[in-house]
């Protein structure tokens, strides 16, 4: 046991990135206006959000109306942070009272078409992606004394983490694009009605549904699922109405907690339009392996970005967050603090034992930290890696906005640094518009995990989730394989390690129909374990056409990571363009443009997205009338073993009777010696 712990100590270094981007209240989602402009006549009249969470992914529809009270036609630019793993799939503009759905084209081509149409005074709109930061919707013209209606839709997969599902509607901006901040101001006010409606369908019982910060205002209603064939599911409706106007400055976060007895499981959601079509699927594995707790003391290094971009409320919230984490340490832990702006500095002068006295003393000093200067992220990290104790488990908490501007700052340079030290990284991103791709890549490359936090999140709850992961072993080199029917184009290609409570989500294509074996494997406590179950690919299942977009987005994300790390080449760029145009997704190289139907014909733009959207809307209309459907495939036919040979177990699915996150029960057992002492004491008393 001791040897095993030592071995883990040598290998198991954890690096945690807390990326804190605290937003000042200046920047938010909303209408961009030039700071020098004196024209205030354009504004957002209404902003209606409709979210549906079902089958492991969310559909977010934003319907908004711009109003121009001025005496000339204007162009409106609506900007909002890129939601996590979101694929923008629809942009509709109402032209002459009719909805016209946009089509995806190569970015430059789309922009040219938009500008040509706008110059002619024709109704047009374009949706563009600004790297990892924002989606920008530009509408022209918003006619004088008139209103213009726009709708956008995006899809994103949602994962359950430690039995808690989380959806974020991002509105708060990251404030990291200094050029943009200096040029534009953002009008985040909605003059008339703001509505947020969310429908949550879960195939498993839910214990709790809440919106932090909106609990008193939101109406949460639970409906009954009437599906008798597939068992009981649950449906919740959440509504938030502000008819007198609102400010789009804070994220809206929804938590939903599954019942603690929710089993470990495999869910496979298929889509196949017909017998001769290619199928698409999403597989979600929620493992039930028993992960041992790491009980020895841990060394924590806080690496704090004190550059100018962290000024204002950011630095204050940063220091509060650091103090909160320090206070939750065990007395056998140690910590040290490294700060960096133009250069890195050992703030605490080495490791300090986390006694109450030391924690209080250091917390007072941390609160005095001021922000200023540049961002030497590379040097800060490098400094953190020096002086690690190889015999102790180590964790590094990095607080930065990820926008390095001093020293090496490219993704491949930072990746090289990590490879040198062979550390595991846990990226903990707080805020929007941060360099999430970089942090995801660092986490995945090192075998860690990525977690993001909104400023509207329950911070303590997220820290507890992160702690549970960091304090337990993980499933190393997790992977999923399929045999039987022809499965191809799996994405993401590499999964890496799975930490406590995490799910494995993979997309793929399939042809044919019939049974297949699903094999999930990974190393737990040094031992390779394999779990198998049987699943079935149907000949036709038209319920979830959105899966095609989600698959494509996963492929695009992988290609973009390669581009960020190795550079853009025509081949890589074209791959992204092809995936974006074929699957109608807004990417870094493709945009969605809306023009009049007649102009579409004239320009030879094919209505791929319009056809796709119609198919999706038909399926959604049918699903809305149907009860919750469970896509669990491993029930009563799964097996698991550590020898690699599947052996039939009695029941309970792929993971037996394990629960979805097998956090050990908190106990405090008396030992065998205690029992002996108790017996002896009793005998002595009786003898007397």
């Amino acid at each position: 046991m001791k040897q095993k712990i030592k071995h883990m100590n040598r290998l198991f270094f954890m690096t945690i990135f807390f990326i804190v981007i605290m937003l000042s209240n200046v920047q938010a989602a909303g209408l961009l206006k030039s700071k020098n402009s004196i024209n205030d006549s354009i504004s957002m009249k209404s902003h209606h959000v409709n979210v549906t969470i079902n089958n492991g992914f969310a559909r977010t529809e934003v319907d908004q109306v711009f109003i121009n009270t001025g005496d000339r036609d204007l162009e409106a630019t609506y900007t909002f942070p890129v939601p996590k793993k979101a694929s923008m799939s629809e942009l509709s503009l109402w032209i002459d009272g009719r909805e016209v759905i946009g089509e995806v084209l190569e970015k430059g081509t789309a922009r040219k078409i938009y500008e040509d149409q706008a110059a002619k005074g024709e109704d047009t709109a374009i949706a563009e992606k600004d790297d990892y930061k924002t989606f920008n919707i530009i509408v022209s013209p918003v006619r004088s004394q008139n209103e213009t209606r726009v709708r956008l839709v995006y899809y994103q997969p949602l994962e359950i983490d430690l039995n808690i599902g989380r959806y974020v509607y991002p509105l708060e901006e990251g404030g990291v694009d200094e050029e943009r901040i200096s040029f534009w101001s953002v009008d985040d006010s909605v003059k008339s009605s703001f509505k947020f409606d969310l429908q949550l369908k879960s195939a498993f019982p839910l214990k709790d549904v809440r919106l932090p910060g909106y609990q008193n205002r939101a109406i949460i209603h639970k409906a009954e699922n009437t599906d008798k064939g597939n068992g009981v599911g649950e449906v919740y409706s959440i509504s938030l109405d502000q008819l007198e106007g609102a400010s789009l400055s804070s994220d809206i976060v929804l938590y939903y907690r599954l019942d603690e007895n929710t089993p470990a499981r495999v869910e496979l959601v298929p889509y196949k339009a017909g017998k001769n079509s290619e199928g698409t699927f999403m597989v979600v594995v929620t493992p039930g392996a028993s992960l041992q707790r790491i009980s020895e003391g841990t060394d924590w290094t806080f690496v704090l970005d004190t550059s100018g971009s962290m000024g204002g409320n950011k630095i204050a919230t940063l220091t509060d967050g650091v103090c909160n984490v320090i206070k939750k340490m065990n007395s056998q832990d140690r910590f040290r603090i490294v700060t960096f702006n133009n250069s890195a500095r050992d703030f605490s002068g080495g490791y300090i034992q986390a006694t109450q006295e030391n924690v209080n003393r250091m917390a007072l000093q941390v609160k005095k930290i001021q922000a200023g200067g540049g961002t030497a992220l590379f040097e800060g990290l490098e400094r953190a890696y020096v002086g690690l104790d190889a015999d102790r488990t180590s964790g590094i908490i990095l607080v930065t906005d990820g926008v390095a501007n001093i020293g090496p700052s490219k993704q491949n340079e930072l990746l090289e640094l990590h490879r040198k030290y062979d550390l595991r990284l846990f990226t903990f991103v707080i805020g929007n518009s941060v360099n999430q791709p970089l942090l995801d890549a660092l986490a995945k490359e090192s075998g860690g995990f990525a977690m993001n936090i909104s400023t509207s999140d329950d911070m303590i709850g997220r820290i507890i989730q992160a702690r549970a992961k960091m304090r337990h072993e993980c499933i190393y080199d997790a992977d999923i394989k399929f045999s039987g029917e022809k499965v191809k184009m799996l994405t993401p290609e590499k999964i890496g390690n799975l930490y406590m409570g995490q799910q494995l989500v993979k997309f793929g294509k399939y042809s044919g129909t019939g049974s297949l074996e699903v094999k999930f494997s990974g190393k737990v406590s040094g031992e390779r374990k394999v779990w198998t179950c049987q699943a079935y690919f149907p000949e036709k299942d038209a319920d979830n056409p959105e899966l095609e977009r989600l698959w494509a987005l996963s492929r695009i994300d992988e290609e973009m990571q390669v581009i960020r790390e190795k550079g853009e080449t025509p081949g890589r760029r074209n791959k992204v363009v092809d995936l974006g145009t074929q699957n109608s997704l807004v990417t870094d190289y493709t945009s969605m443009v809306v023009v009049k139907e007649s102009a579409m014909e004239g320009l030879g733009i094919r209505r791929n997205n319009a056809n796709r959207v119609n198919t999706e809307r038909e399926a959604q209309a049918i699903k809305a009338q149907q009860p919750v459907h469970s896509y669990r495939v491993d029930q009563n036919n799964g097996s698991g073993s550590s020898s690699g040979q599947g052996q039939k177990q009695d029941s309970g699915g792929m993971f037996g009777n394990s629960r979805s996150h097998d956090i050990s029960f908190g106990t405090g057992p008396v030992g065998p010696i205690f029992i002996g002492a108790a017996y002896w004491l009793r005998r002595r008393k009786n003898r007397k």
Partner: protein
Amino acid sequence: MSISPKTGTGDYKMAMAIEHAGQAETERRENVILNRISGLPFDMFIFIVFIILCNFHIISGNITRSLIFLPGSVRQGEWWRLFTHPFFHVSLYHLVLDAGAFFLLYSGLAEKRMIKKVFCVIFSGVCSLIASQIFSADIQTQGLCGLSGIAHGLMAYSSLEMIHQQALRKIGIISLIIVALKTVFEMISGNALFSSLHFGDYGNPLVTCHAGGVIGGIGAYLIMFINHPGRLNDSKR
């Protein structure tokens, strides 16, 4: 084997005698068990019933978290967890250890009045829970279950009883010091003492519950001593 009276009177009588003897033995054994059960003090009987009810999963294999103490769940109205969590155990091994220690110490208390003994159990349990809630962040996700906190409280209480008796004073002092030092060591180190000696599944130790239990046991004794200074003498009457 059937014996007809016609085949032989002697054999038949012998067979019937054997059969009657067997029945009598079975009845005797059942009477012993029933006598033992009916002879159990009421409080012990209730504890045994609670333990059986809260540990069915050990037989069925369907372990559940619905009876353990989880702060979030209790806040949401699942108040029964306050009462069920000490009786719930994660495995047979865990149950034997904790329940074994509990019954050994409980039945060995010099205090004979049921209400006082139950008060000691409850007070130790409450202090154990409060200490875990204050000093252990892991209780938020792992929860708490088992009788070990109460067992440590009973150990402390037993020690104080022995200190009060001339002949057992030295043993009482030593055992109190040992149990107190044990819990202090566990609080500082964060690990259960001699945890490497365990050979079964016992969950994840939240050792702060031991310290809380000891504080509860000492507190319960002091409360009763203050109320009845000659307490032990009273209980012997």
